[in-house]
């Protein structure tokens, strides 16, 4: 069957379209390889919230969502790459909250992105405090924000007086959770570090419905258990040394001396081990991202989340 002129044109045009589309994608990928990635990620093209607010023609709520998503993506990428610098995180969060001062989630998550030390966060607790204070100023009825503010003061700055003050302020908000009053009292007394930390992470777990927040709380609770266990075991080793004049040669010897029913185990059920210098160690330290005790020398923690 002879091909008509129109059909021939259609076929040639369709082929050209496919070839050109494929070639343009390939060309763009080469361009992407040539451009340094860092410059794309590190630049905040507009860093004035006022300019963005005006340029959005009144649709600033949508712009805030876009900037919040950008902040989450920025943090996620840096966190994944185990980056030690989060230069644009605070400006992105500040831009987001200036555009929509009632976007409570940006304060809550933003503080937990900013405050922890790298690689788990930006290591900027002061910027986190600024962000939270701005949040409290604009949303005085959100008791969660006072809780998060106190949390940063306690966990990252170890400023018990400020933490107590934040919890106290939050406890006056109508409908606030009763544990804020208890927290304020705990902070004021400076009581049991492990108990207080456990209480705070438990409260975080119970008061949030977000999967990531709950997973993060679970990881911290697991790590707290390890830290407490290792601290106690280490004390036992020290006491053994004081009584016998030497270190125990193994965990079994320590267990026998203390008349324990078995070797104490971490939250995963793996028995703790001991090196020749009497240091208590985790069998699988990589399973406890936030543990600060029981880690072999030079071990670098990797973020890992377990089921709740």
């Amino acid at each position, binding site marked *: 069957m002879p091909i008509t002129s129109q059909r021939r044109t259609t076929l040639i045009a369709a082929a050209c379209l496919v070839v050109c589309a494929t070639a343009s994608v390939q060309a763009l990928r080469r361009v992407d390889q040539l451009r340094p990635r860092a410059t794309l990620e590190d630049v905040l093209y507009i860093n004035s919230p006022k300019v963005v607010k*005006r340029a959005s023609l009144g*649709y*600033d709520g*949508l712009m805030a*969502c876009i900037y*919040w*998503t950008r902040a989450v993506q920025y943090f996620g990428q840096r966190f994944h790459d185990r980056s030690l610098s989060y230069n644009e995180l605070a400006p992105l969060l500040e831009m987001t909250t200036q555009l929509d001062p009632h*976007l409570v*989630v940006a304060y809550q998550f933003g503080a937990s992105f900013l405050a922890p030390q790298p690689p788990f966060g930006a290591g900027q607790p002061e910027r986190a405090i600024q962000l939270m204070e701005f949040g409290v100023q604009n949303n005085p009825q959100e008791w969660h924000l006072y809780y998060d503010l106190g949390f940063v003061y306690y966990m990252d700055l170890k400023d018990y007086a400020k933490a107590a003050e934040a919890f106290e302020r939050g406890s006056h908000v109508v409908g606030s959770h009763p544990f804020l009053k208890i927290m304020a009292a705990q902070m004021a007394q400076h009581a049991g570090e492990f108990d207080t930390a456990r209480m705070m992470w438990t409260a975080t777990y119970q008061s949030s419905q977000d999967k990531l927040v709950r997973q993060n709380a679970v990881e911290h609770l697991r790590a707290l258990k390890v830290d407490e266990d290792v601290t106690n075991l280490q004390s036992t080793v020290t006491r053994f040394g004081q009584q016998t004049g030497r270190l125990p040669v193994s965990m079994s010897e320590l267990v026998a001396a203390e008349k324990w029913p078995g070797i104490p185990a971490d939250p995963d059920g793996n028995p703790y081990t001991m090196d020749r210098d009497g240091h208590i160690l985790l069998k699988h330290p990589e399973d406890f991202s936030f543990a600060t005790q029981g880690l072999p020398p030079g071990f670098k923690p990797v973020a890992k989340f377990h089921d709740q």
Partner: protein
Amino acid sequence: MSARVIHIASNTFREAVRDRVLYNLIAFALLLSGAAILVGQISIEIERLVVINLGLTAVSLFGIVIAIFIGIGLVSKEIEKRTLYTVLSRPVRRWEFIVGKFFGLAGTLVVNTFFMAIGVFGALLYVAHKLTSSDAMILIALYFIVLEFLIICALALLFSSFSTPLLSAVFAFSLFVIGSFAEDLRGFAGMAHGLTRWLATGAAYAVPNFSAFNVINLVAHGQAPSGQLILQNTLYALFYAGMALSGAVLIFERRNLK
């Protein structure tokens, strides 16, 4: 309203539908469903906010683009096709033609907004799994958007009654942008002195204040605009649209169509 105005309005509506204006609903549906699915994966806890903000912003922007691009051609197209002479040779007054066109375009936008609103609520139901009483506030935001459309339609018709389609589009779009900055203009007037103050104040009242209609972020957070705001915005939109429409009628009545 006279039967002739209703006829012109229904013809305008039919023409818009024939021009495949409602095809924008497909783009809207794709945008919204894509956002609803994607945002949950790339962001944290803002699925509902994004659906409301993006949905209502899209309703507003799609509608404004339609209002401008159809509105500017409503008169000029009739003149170009010479159908206007056929219409006006019948017992139809020029003002009836303008008012009919206005209602036809406004009707098209209301229908368009109605379908988009269904899309917004559908997407909201998808991401939140339920609708709450605070979601009813979205209806107020949609109502304000429709009020915005009335003003834009009237302005597009006003410019269309004396200018070319291209210039009308430029004028209408510029007024939309300036109207979004009306609050700033008023702030500027407050800071100025003497004649500048009078001119800036005059300009701030002359341009439509679109920022007064934007309650999208407010309703996204479940807060209700006050009853007074609803009433005053309604009155403002009706008076402003009435003013622009009257201007269009005045110009069109005197326009030499030969």
